[in-house]
């Protein structure tokens, strides 16, 4: 196992390469997820605002 981790003396190059590969792809995978969560929260807020506006001032809807 230690032999394998040592990568024949090239561990300092092989493992950082794999770390970069997985770190960049993890960023690529997570960034849109966070963006989507933020967007969903905004959309929820927008719909909730519209609903409260409609219930509080029913005339606004009638005039519009």
């Amino acid at each position: 196992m230690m032999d394998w981790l040592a990568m024949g003396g090239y561990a300092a190059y092989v493992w950082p390469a794999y770390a970069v590969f997985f770190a960049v792809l993890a960023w690529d995978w997570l960034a849109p997820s966070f963006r989507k969560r933020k967007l969903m929260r905004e959309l929820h807020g927008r719909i909730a605002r519209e609903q409260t506006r409609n219930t509080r001032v029913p005339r606004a809807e009638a005039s519009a």
Partner: protein
Amino acid sequence: MSRSYIPHWIHWLGSPPNFYRFAGAWRPWLMAAALAAGAIGLYGGLVLAPPDYQQGDAYRIIFIHVPSAWMSLAIYAGMAVAGLIALVWRVKLAEVIAMESAPIGAAFTLVTLVTGSLWGKPMWGTWWTWDARLTSELVLLFLYLGVIGLYHAFEDRRRGARAASLLALVGVVNLPIVHYSVQWWNTLHQGSTVDLFGRSSIAPSMLWPLLVMALATHLYYFASILGRARTDLLSLESGKQWVRELVEEQPAQRQGAPT
């Protein structure tokens, strides 16, 4: 009638709500397949494959470096095709796919450059050389960054997508010219033309993990682009009825795992 030559399912898929559901259904399976292929490929490459008789274990970077390099070019081609469709037929979905492919392609290009540098240090004794292949890859990164930058410089996102698609198409013409001119320049200056792959053909025990990793990165790209396109469609169509229905269906998630 005029578009009867296009299969019906493409029309169906081109509609944002349909695509949103389709992508949501396929994305987990594609990612699972990508992870499975990646696990098999890495096991084959890191454990089963024997060390190279010249490069020792350092060559094992090949299993991520070469698939990333292939992906950097394949995603550019995909982005250009989607961009062409977006420019000619003005399909919103094609614009989204072209623009959301760019960050994934840039990520793979960055990985290619960094892993190539980490491979080059023990093999050539330097982090960077102005080798034809490395230089072309660097130019490709700049092309990706230009597309991303141009897209985000516009107020109107659809106009930005069309402009950036045209830039991507200009890049398609430019890339082979860059490649050959850099090769010519390299021979002119007697630069270090190091062939990482050697002259001998690659052994089957090293080849199959490489191909499985290439499959894994392709699957990952499809999974990632579906997720990115879903998010983008939601924000582009945020005023539409289907988005409103979708948001009302789902309970507000304050905390919890990102989906």
